[in-house]
């Protein structure tokens, strides 16, 4: 029970701190009314021993009808002049007037004289000496507020409200729909970032590769490994190199065994299957040269097309175009040109995300409106007839993995060849 005396002695006498009843109540976990009595008791016992040892500030609440306050020192009472006329201010009705005042102990007797009736008086705070500035009390109050903010701190409210309504804030569980695209994006990005190393790798191994690749005639099957490497081990370039050859082999064989699957990939796969040979396989040097020569024409064409497209967003419709256009066309701006799709096929519906260009108007610093094109992802679902699945059970997961992989790879390769 005497814990509070020890605490108060430490805080007020040793540390020269101001302790309010709220602070005491929070610190010791006692009711505020008990805390007020503790302050009083401590103040009294200390000052009985040695008068003036500590200083108390009282809080007085009571009615003050019709008594105007005379000026007293510098207590900052602005209302002195206006309070008398207040009463009959413009046929004001009479009203009860109460006042809640903080009074230092030395002025208590004097201030009490202005009250008609005191409803309540208690010690608000005790402090080492008379306070010059109320800011000290503000600090103490802020300390209390900080304590109240604590998560599991139960506020000892004097008056509770049984009708309290509060929102239960439930975080919206991330929906599977929105959750799915993200991983895809992440996968794609690493692929891009890994492009360069991967290219280097492929170039370096160009000599050995062709043989293997030729052996595995289906181009689509080759590329997946590179992609996977890029995606999964984007940090370890060396890993990619070292494993490249072996993986390719494995994948090649896997691809062979699943000869049927590529057809299921449809548009998603097309860029791959078309380019596959060019990019990765033997003729590599040639295409590069070709692109170098063609690039001017190509670019001009590109530009023209882009201008035309500016008005309509044909990008979405682009899915078929890559098939028609050779890889080289896509080369200048691989990201734009090659619609990448993440496709899942279920119940005969194709759903997924495809890469499109979105137009966006923004205001720049100088207040001009600027239209920029931004790559974005758009989800779609088509009602296409499901591709014939010879081995539905096994192919489904495998196909998925492959699909994702080819895209990444295809784009990477084209990116390289461009340069």
């Amino acid at each position: 029970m005497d814990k509070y005396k020890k605490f108060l002695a430490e805080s007020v006498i040793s540390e020269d701190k101001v302790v309010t009843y709220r602070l005491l109540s929070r610190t010791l976990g006692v009711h505020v009314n008990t805390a007020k009595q503790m302050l009083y008791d401590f103040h009294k016992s200390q000052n009985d021993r040695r008068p003036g040892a500590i200083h108390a500030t009282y809080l007085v609440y009571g009615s003050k009808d019709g008594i105007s306050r005379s000026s007293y020192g510098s207590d900052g009472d602005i209302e002195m002049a206006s309070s008398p006329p207040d009463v009959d201010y413009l046929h004001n009705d009479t009203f009860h007037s109460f006042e809640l005042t903080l009074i230092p102990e030395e002025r208590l007797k004097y201030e009490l004289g202005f009250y008609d009736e005191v409803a309540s008086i208690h010690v608000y705070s005790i402090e080492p000496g008379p306070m010059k500035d109320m800011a000290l009390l503000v600090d103490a109050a802020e300390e209390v507020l900080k304590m109240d903010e604590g998560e599991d701190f139960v506020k000892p409210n004097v008056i509770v409200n049984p009708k309290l309504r509060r929102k239960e804030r439930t975080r919206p569980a991330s929906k599977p729909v929105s959750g799915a695209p993200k991983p895809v994006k992440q996968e794609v990005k690493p692929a891009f970032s890994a492009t360069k190393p991967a290219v280097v790798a492929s170039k370096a191994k160009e000599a050995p590769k062709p043989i293997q690749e030729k052996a595995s005639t289906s181009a689509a099957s080759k590329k997946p490994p590179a992609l996977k490497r890029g995606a999964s081990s984007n940090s370890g370039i060396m890993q990619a190199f070292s494993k490249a050859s072996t993986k390719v082999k494995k994948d090649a064989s896997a691809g062979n065994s699943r000869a049927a699957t590529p057809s299921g990939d449809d548009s998603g796969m097309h860029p791959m299957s078309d380019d596959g040979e060019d990019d990765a396989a033997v003729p590599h040097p040639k295409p590069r040269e070709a692109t170098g020569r063609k690039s001017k024409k190509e670019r001009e064409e590109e530009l023209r097309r882009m201008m035309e497209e500016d008005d309509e967003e044909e990008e979405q419709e682009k899915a078929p175009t890559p098939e028609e256009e050779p890889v080289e066309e896509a080369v200048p701006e691989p990201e734009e040109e090659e619609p990448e799709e993440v496709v899942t096929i279920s119940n005969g519906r194709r759903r997924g995300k495809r890469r499109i260009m979105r137009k966006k108007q923004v205001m720049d610093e100088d207040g001009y409106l600027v239209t920029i094109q931004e790559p974005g992802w758009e989800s779609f679902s088509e009602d296409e007839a499901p591709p014939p699945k010879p081995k539905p059970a096994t192919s489904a997961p495998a196909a998925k993995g492959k699909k994702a992989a080819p895209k990444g790879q295809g784009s990477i390769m084209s990116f390289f060849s461009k340069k």
Partner: protein
Amino acid sequence: MVTLEDVLDSGMLKKPSEDEPEVLERSDSDYHPLHTFTLGKDLQYRQQFADIYFLRLTKIKPAVEEIASIAWEGTVIGGETAKRVERVLDVRQGELCWVAGTVYVDMPLKPNILEDVSKDRWISAPSTAQHYFSDDGRDAVMLEDDSGRIRLVGSVLKSHILVTGCIIAAMGTENINGEFDVIDIQIADLPPQPGRWELSKPSQNDTKKEPKPKSEDVEMSGSPSAAPSKKIAFVSGLEFSGTDTSHAMDLNLLLEFLLGDVVDPATQAELSQISRLIIAGNSIASEAKEHPAEDPAERKSAHKKYGYDSSSYNPLPSQLLDKFLSELLPSMPITLLPGAHDPANASYPQQPIHAAMFPKARAYTVLPGSTEPGWLDTVTNPWEGEVEGWRFLGTGGQNLDDMCKYVPDNNRLGLMEAMCRWRCSAPTAPDTLWAYPFQDDEPFVMKKCPHLYFVGCQPEFGTRVIQGPDGQMVRLIAVPSFAATREIILVDTETLDVSRVKIAT
């Protein structure tokens, strides 16, 4: 007079007692807000303002004419009987007649849209004029309707409060100068008043307490008389500020007072009867004074990377307000009206402060799609609602402040009364008080007479009761700005009696 000896045996000035302090329950709040002033989300601002005047006139004119015809029917002056004329333009020179229309007060000091346009100022800043009124007789009062306008003259005008936008009927004759010499003026007077508990039912008191008398006994123990009536607390102009801390301690005391932490158990029981706090505007201080116009070019260069530009925006005031609200809300429901300085739109009717301003307190706001009002109810300004069965109408103070610029004296309660008797809560909108250009409805017309009309952010506290011809009683309260006066207002919900609590440090 109270002496020290009188209070020394008080309950709090003794040794800590061992007995368990009782837990008080706060009174329930019967609360039914109305959405009279809520603007739809898809409103546009392309239309003209004239429709507001037209709608107001068509709504109030019948009432004015009814009163006027009763008052002036068969009035004979100088051998001539006063006739009613339909339109302002129908007034004939020399004929004694009366006509109803909208008052327009032309004042040289008043901001004038035509002036702005002629000077090619298309974006106007809020007017800074303290007074439009000038004493030199240049101010002209006109009466207008959709047909035309006529200038009013006569000594009668001096004895009436007239501001732009109020609807009156005037009797007199047109003089040789084409001015209307007014003999008498009539206004619509208080609209019909709904009964108490028109929209909601006094649910809890009888139904809840009867089944369990035990709890009643406990509740009674602290209070002197049986069933003390509930109270509503009003405060305005809290003006939480990032720079001015001069009333920080008073705000703390206010919080402790409303929470019931201060004072002794008997008074705490009284305070537990405060069932709701209504904050009538200006919860956040205007920082304009502290930041005199900086060089705009210099400001522009300040780069803003994330979120706000810390050189031009100080989040502290809204954080302090949020903290205040979230401390108080567990104990007490709050209705929050925006004011002139608050983060809401500037034009009347101001829409609710968005809950996003209150990261902590927003947990208490209304659930989307819920019909129940929020525990923290951020509402429009003006706002109308039924609290404890009484019809409340209140504003954040801009309407009254603007009207005060039209009149020579500062008779704020008188202007509040005039608003009620004109049946218009914002007559100077849209002339000098910015307002939304309403097309279909003019919400500022009082269709129902409130029981309590409060206006926030006033320089001084004032209250009185006005009465209408059909026994209407309206309690007017000018809620003082807390930052200026440190005062809050408590209203008894049974008698609508008002008391004032002043906080001093």
